[in-house]
């Protein structure tokens, strides 16, 4: 279990031990202990909120350096749809593709193209009657892990299809093998990731046995190099348009794109982790049973709001919409004959039990009673000074044996004051007795 890889990581040296990330973590997965933040790995969903809010830039995402592409004989890059909203100067989408080739990649495979295949497969599945409605998108790995941890009842509602990144990687490798004659291991598939959750999902795939992606390079790392390359390409002049995707695929980069592409009437799209949690709560209570499809993105505005992107997500969305206006609706679809088996999930998605107090309900009830009792003694200020996000979280930590009541500075102050009072009363008593004695004599 402890072998689970997380992309989101802490740089201890930069951490000041403030509680900004502790307070903002949607799964209460961070505590400050001994003056430094600590991530409770079992609870972290790699959403990247802590990276977004850390004022000291102590949280970062582990990704692969651009130089790591050298390990492969033939290098294919997978740009996600949100990448096309990152650059101001892109009268022509061709510029980004040309820039990527200049950076040393041998081929470009747009994730948006694979997204259109997934959209096409989703429509086929929704037309059938086999899926549990509402169907939840399988594209955001942070949301999928959140469901496994907090909403296990909804696992069966997840669309059992590989996300566009995986479909793109699989098809890109196949094409490269066909075109170069090299063996599959010699082909390096590099995804330009807008978020840490995608990196984590490559190392720990959800719903599929093995990821087809070899490297995850962050958009923030490639951004300046790609900008220079694009500028060079602009001067040299561009070749013909080789775009692989249309509006449907590109709109997957922003919230609502995937949902709209299902072409159903009952769909909903929520973005931003808090909004996502609220929608999942409602779904769990059977309150969204009139919806057919639910698209959920952990980041505000969708993947375009990923923490490893550069541009303000709302500016980027505007740009992407503008670019889409000149594209066909869609350039890719699967055959009417059915969904290719390799686009479907081949591994079972299991719940993750990290919230429960104890495996035995009897013991859990005992611990919960203790937790409530401790919480009633705390001040309810949720100040976070103890390093936990709330008084209730501290009470839980105490019950689990990870903390003590002395971690609460208010309780500690009470304790110190009571010691002071008893010391004081000791001295007063002595003096009183002395005086009484004096009077008696």
């Amino acid at each position, binding site marked *: 279990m402890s072998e689970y890889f997380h992309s989101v990581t802490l740089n201890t040296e930069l951490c000041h031990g403030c509680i900004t990330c502790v307070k903002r973590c949607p799964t209460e997965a961070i505590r400050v202990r001994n003056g430094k933040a600590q991530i409770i790995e079992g609870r972290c969903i790699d959403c990247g909120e802590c990276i977004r809010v850390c004022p000291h830039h102590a949280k970062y995402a582990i990704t692969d350096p651009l130089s790591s592409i050298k390990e492969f004989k033939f290098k294919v890059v997978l740009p996600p749809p949100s990448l096309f909203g990152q650059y101001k100067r892109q009268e022509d989408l061709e510029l980004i593709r040309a820039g990527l080739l200049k950076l040393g990649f041998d081929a470009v495979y747009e994730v948006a193209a694979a997204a259109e295949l997934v959209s096409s497969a989703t429509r086929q599945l929704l037309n059938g009657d086999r899926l549990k409605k509402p169907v939840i998108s399988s594209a955001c790995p942070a949301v999928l892990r959140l469901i496994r941890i907090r909403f296990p009842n909804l696992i069966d509602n997840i669309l059992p299809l590989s996300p566009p990144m995986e479909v793109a990687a699989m098809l890109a490798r196949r094409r490269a093998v066909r075109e170069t004659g090299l063996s599959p291991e010699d082909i390096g598939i590099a995804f330009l990731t807008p978020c840490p959750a995608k990196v984590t999902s490559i190392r720990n795939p959800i719903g599929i046995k093995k990821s087809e992606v070899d490297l995850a390079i962050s958009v923030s790392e490639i951004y300046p190099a790609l900008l220079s390359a694009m500028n060079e390409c602009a001067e040299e002049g561009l070749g013909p348009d080789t775009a692989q995707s249309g509006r449907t695929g590109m709109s997957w980069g922003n919230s609502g794109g995937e949902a709209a592409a299902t072409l159903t009437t009952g769909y909903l799209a929520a973005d931003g982790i808090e909004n996502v949690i609220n929608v999942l709560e409602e779904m769990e209570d059977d309150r969204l049973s009139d919806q057919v499809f639910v698209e959920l993105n952990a980041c505000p505005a969708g993947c375009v709001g990923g923490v490893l992107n550069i541009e303000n997500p709302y500016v980027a969305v505007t740009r992407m919409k503008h670019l889409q206006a000149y594209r066909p609706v869609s350039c890719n679809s699967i055959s009417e004959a059915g969904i290719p088996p390799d686009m479907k999930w081949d591994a079972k998605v299991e719940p993750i039990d990290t919230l429960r107090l104890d495996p035995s*309900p009897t013991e859990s009830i005992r611990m*919960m009673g203790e937790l409530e009792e401790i919480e009633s003694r705390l001040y309810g200020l949720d100040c976070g000074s103890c390093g936990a996000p709330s008084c209730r979280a501290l009470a839980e930590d105490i019950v689990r044996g990870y903390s003590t009541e002395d971690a609460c500075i208010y309780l500690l102050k009470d304790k110190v004051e009571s010691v002071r009072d008893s010391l004081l009363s000791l001295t007063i008593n002595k003096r009183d007795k002395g005086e009484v004695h004096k009077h008696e004599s």
Partner: protein
Amino acid sequence: MTVNSLHYHYDVPGDDFTRAGVASGAVKQILKQLGLNPETVRKMSIALYEAEINMVIHGGGGVIDIDIDDDKIVALVSDQGPGIEDLDLAMQEGWSTASEQERNLGFGAGMGLPNMKKYSDELEINSEVGVGTSVKITVNIEKSGEQRD
């Protein structure tokens, strides 16, 4: 000190739709933390949410008392509202006395009582016109050994 049962009490204000569902939401979090079978959690959450909403819409608010022990979760939802005139009629799907405004807010689909019945293992409703209504929802706790796949 050994605790083998838990008790929670919630005051639910009437006619405040922004707070409707807060108590059932809190109970859901507690049940999840107790590590109960997800289906058990789901059943209680849905039934209790419906009861809470009903109490806000029709009963003018009231109180919720939750008792949890090894075998079962019991929720007692009581108000001092107008009471239900014809309980058999109210149990029918689609039947509702919700106002136009409440329906516009998405309430009053007439699924409240039927859903409570569907998701609870035992449902006891006591209602007297002019006095109030109390709904007792019982959901049995499935032991891990008996969990279905």
